[in-house]
């Protein structure tokens, strides 16, 4: 299993490079922008896929975690802290070297948080919120869990929409790039930003991150923890009797998936240069669930490929004004006819073909 996954991940790397070459040859490099975005969304989807498919816990609130990451990163790197320079929290940030000075459009002094520090704070905040929410929520099952997570997502959405700090209906724009590595020798600096000059680099960065993220989750699924998660999905009583602390494991995988979502939110916000409240909407959360379902709940590869593929088509505007309706349709269709995911249909097809031959 492990060698198969390694090979498949290698294949995915090749695919990523081939797509780049193809777009370079056909002069359609603008596709890379949407592919980069899809890869970040892919990160949310595989995290949620691990939570839903393997641990069996539904969450209709993951757009909330994505938005917590994205919005905090955006606010911390754009909102001027100069008036608060004397307050203790800001002084601590300064002492830790987490602040940077710049100038705003009008030449006034602008004190903001360094992107790396903002990223750490945003992801940590998402993890903390997941912990606090997860302890009571994950005691619930079935419809109750679905509604509670839906409620959580809605609260995040409402709070963002109502807070001037988060830009209300406009969201936050002018988010700067996220310098990951300084320039070294002949290589330029590595920056997460939507600057067309950085397009190829950002494409590889996002895909690389997705592949690493998927690799980590695949390892996890094959491990002792992954077995315990699948066990508690099937029977919490039997898993407990085998010594699995089900509450703790559910909580940890919930936090893990929230961290994936928040990290994707941070990076995509830097890449897009901004974030709006629609990223936190219930429809986004439902879309993530739909993509996990299409890929097959217990099939991380299917989730990854279908998630990135369909998100890419959606971002390209292929579905036009029927975008949300298409995802609704996908949800129903998959759940009615192929609860194991689209990829499970190949078994059915193979069976039908074999039946026709004999």
């Amino acid at each position, binding site marked *: 299993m492990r060698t198969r996954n390694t090979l498949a991940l290698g294949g995915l790397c090749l695919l990523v490079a081939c797509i780049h070459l193809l777009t370079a040859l056909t002069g359609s490099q603008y596709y890379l922008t949407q592919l980069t975005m899809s890869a970040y969304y892919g990160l949310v989807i595989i995290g949620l896929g691990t939570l839903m498919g393997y641990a*069996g816990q539904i969450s209709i609130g993951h757009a909330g975690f994505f938005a917590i990451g994205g919005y905090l990163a955006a606010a911390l790197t754009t909102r001027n802290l100069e008036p608060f320079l004397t307050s203790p929290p800001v002084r601590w940030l300064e002492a830790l070297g987490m602040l940077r000075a710049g100038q705003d459009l009008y030449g006034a002094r602008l004190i903001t948080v360094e992107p790396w520090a903002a990223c750490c704070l945003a992801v940590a905040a998402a993890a903390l919120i997941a912990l606090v929410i997860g302890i009571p929520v994950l005691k619930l099952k079935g*419809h109750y869990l*679905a*509604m509670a997570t839906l409620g959580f997502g809605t609260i995040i959405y409402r709070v963002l929409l109502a807070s001037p700090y988060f830009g209300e209906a406009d969201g936050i724009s002018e988010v700067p790039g996220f310098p990951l590595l300084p320039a070294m020798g002949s290589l330029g600096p590595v920056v997460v930003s939507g600057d067309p000059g950085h397009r190829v680099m950002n494409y590889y960065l996002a895909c690389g991150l997705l592949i690493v993220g998927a690799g980590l989750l695949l390892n996890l699924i094959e491990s002792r923890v992954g077995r315990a998660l699948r066990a508690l999905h099937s029977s919490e009583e039997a898993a407990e009797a085998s010594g699995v602390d089900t509450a703790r494991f559910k909580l940890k995988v919930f936090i893990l998936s929230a961290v994936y979502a928040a990290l994707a939110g941070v990076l995509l916000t830097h890449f897009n240069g901004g974030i709006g409240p629609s990223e936190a909407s219930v429809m986004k959360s439902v879309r993530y*669930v739909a993509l996990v379902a299409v890929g097959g709940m217990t099939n991380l590869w299917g989730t990854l490929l279908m998630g990135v593929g369909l998100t890419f088509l959606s971002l390209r505007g292929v579905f036009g004004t029927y975008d949300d309706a298409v995802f*609704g349709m996908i949800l129903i269709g998959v759940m009615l006819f192929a609860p194991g995911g689209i990829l499970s249909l190949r078994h059915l097809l193979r069976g039908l073909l074999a039946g026709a031959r004999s």
Partner: protein
Amino acid sequence: MSPDLFFQYLFAGITYGSIYAIVAIGFNIIYNATGIINFAQGEFVMLGGMISISLLPHLPLPLAIAGAVAATMVIGALIEMVFIRWLESPSVLRMIIITIGISILLRESALHVWGESIRSLPYFFGNEITVLNLGSVHLSPQVLVVIAACAVMVAGLNVFFKGTPIGREMRACAANRTAALLCGISARNMVTLSFMLSAGIGALAGCVMSPITYTQYDSGTSLAIKGFTVAILGGLGNSMAAVSAGILLGVIEAFSVSVLPLAFQDAISITILLIILFVRPHGLFGSSEAARLKDF
């Protein structure tokens, strides 16, 4: 707070609360028949409002409402027959996702048919500035229409479930599906009926509330969350408790407006929902033993 203002808030709370109660009863009817929480419940309310608004130019108001209720009931029955009926013991997760998908489809269809504009039925009596004076309290007559309509629905459902043979058959199915089957009751038809009933009362609520709250293609989601909050508050499956729970939530929400910004109004009901789920998932009026018997 002056007594006048107090009563103003109170009546606003009762009005919204009765709507929430109807949505909650819609949840309960389907839940009792199938064990499914129909996440598309709020869309029935939206459809009722929208269809009646579209029918109004061609029909007098009562007929437009009747037409909207009938049409929504047909939609409810179709949903059950197309998406639910032929599934053999689906998992809860699968049913949640399917009904969420249905709610998206209904909402998106509404968006394509009616657009994003906010619409409403006219006031049933007088217009928006007509006021009834009850002592020092000033009420729009529509408020009384909403409360009366909800009261009639609750009473009607009570008579239907307790007094008619078909209502009793539905209760038998809810109590014990297998036993009901053995007594020759068609559980499948009862499920279809439950979807129709639930769609019908939702649509009627959508019509009577439309002049006050307006109707938009996406107004179903927040109603669904509030209706579910009420259903949980009263104890899932317990429709009579949902009435008191609905009014309770409506009143809390109305008074919260006096202390909190309007934007947080939705957050309040959701916070209540979360608190209830954590503290008493079997509802304020339900018993914990009974809740544990329900199989999730």
